[in-house]
């Protein structure tokens, strides 16, 4: 097999694995796959062993252990035998790695997707609330109830027009 052919086969195989990982969901936000979240950093072959490299969203995210296990189980059920899941911390995950498809799915599910990172993530005190769009009525007329929400990755907002409270996947 020539070098180019080999390369094509490997990347085709990687593509296949990426497709399979689309079926592995975040247990806390079940509409998002691990691919949508951007936590799969690399897929590698070490001879006959398949290595999937993932990174946590937050240091204390309790979903990471479940996610590692689900990735392994899903790949096993697709016939892969030797699988290694490696967690890396650097570079640190950012909401900018979330796919556009993921953001669309989040909004449809009722969670406001993260704004681009450069808008916030500073240490300014009493900063004005980010303009976050209500996932229900699409108004920008909303306010932050709390910076800390039901999971580490979310903040709690309320819409001033339709009055519905909603989660915002905060920028990180």
């Amino acid at each position, binding site marked *: 097999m020539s070098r180019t052919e080999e390369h094509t086969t490997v990347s085709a195989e990687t593509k296949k694995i990426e497709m399979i990982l689309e079926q592995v969901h975040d247990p806390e936000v079940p509409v998002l796959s691990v691919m949508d979240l951007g936590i799969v950093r690399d897929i590698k072959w070490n001879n006959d062993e398949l290595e999937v490299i993932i990174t946590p969203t937050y240091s204390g995210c309790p979903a990471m252990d479940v996610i590692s296990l689900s990735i392994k189980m899903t790949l096993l059920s697709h016939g892969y035998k030797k699988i290694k899941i490696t967690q890396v911390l650097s570079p640190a995950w950012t909401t900018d790695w979330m796919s556009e498809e993921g953001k669309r799915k989040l909004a449809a599910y009722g969670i406001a997707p993260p704004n681009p990172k450069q808008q916030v993530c500073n240490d300014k005190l009493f900063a004005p609330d980010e303009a976050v769009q209500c996932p229900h009525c699409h108004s920008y007329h909303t306010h932050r109830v709390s910076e800390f929400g*039901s999971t580490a990755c979310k903040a709690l907002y309320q819409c001033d027009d339709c009055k519905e409270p909603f989660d915002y996947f905060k920028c990180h």
Partner: protein
Amino acid sequence: MKQDSFIYYTLHLADNALILGHRNSEWCGHGPVLEQDIAITNISLDLIGQARNFYQYAAKLMNKQNAPSPNGKEVGGEFTEDKLAYLRDVREFKNCLLAEQPNGDWAQTILRQFFFSTYQFYLYRQLQESHPDEQLAAIAAKSLKEVTYHLRWSSEWVIRLGDGTEESRKRMLNALENLWPYTGELFVPAAYETDRMDLKNIKEQWAQKVKDIFSEATLPYPAEGWMHTGGKTGMHTEQLGFILAELQFMQRAYPNSEW
């Protein structure tokens, strides 16, 4: 010896995060309002997550060099993050005394968090920028994003309470009197700290930040005075024993139990 002191340093970072994380978790279900209950327990979760990253790394280093078991007796097999958290005795913990101080009222919890987050913020920034060990730098870089939230949240609360009502101000002053003597230890290097961190620089940045926030909160910045030390080398206040009794009870009573 050099490697030992690096392991101690990693454990020190882990213990700081675990013990303060545990303290904050005691608020779960008891916060003054639901949103703030959720905030303090979220901070707790971040800290315990950071502790896990440091413990996992310390365990890896200890397994590599066949270090003696942490409490001098055989704990069986390999070191793990759980063994380091659940099976070490009080004198082996290297956290700062500030982290183990009791929650007191909301003002005391807030002030402890503010003092600690300010310290952690500048410490992690230095680790991220200049520590030669890649994994420590990576854990610091990851954690710094979370600590930025903790620092902003606790700063806002210090201002809100200090410059709030007569009652909130009284409680803040009381918290300040209780906690101030535990802040000095943060900047007194233990033997395992000296060669890698510039604590003098962190102290200057810490003092400036505290002065800025206190001035907005109309709180007096206390004069330098006598400070407690000892936590970094295992000489703790009576508080840590009670924390470990609760934290470690299950693993001690039912070894290797899982849930």
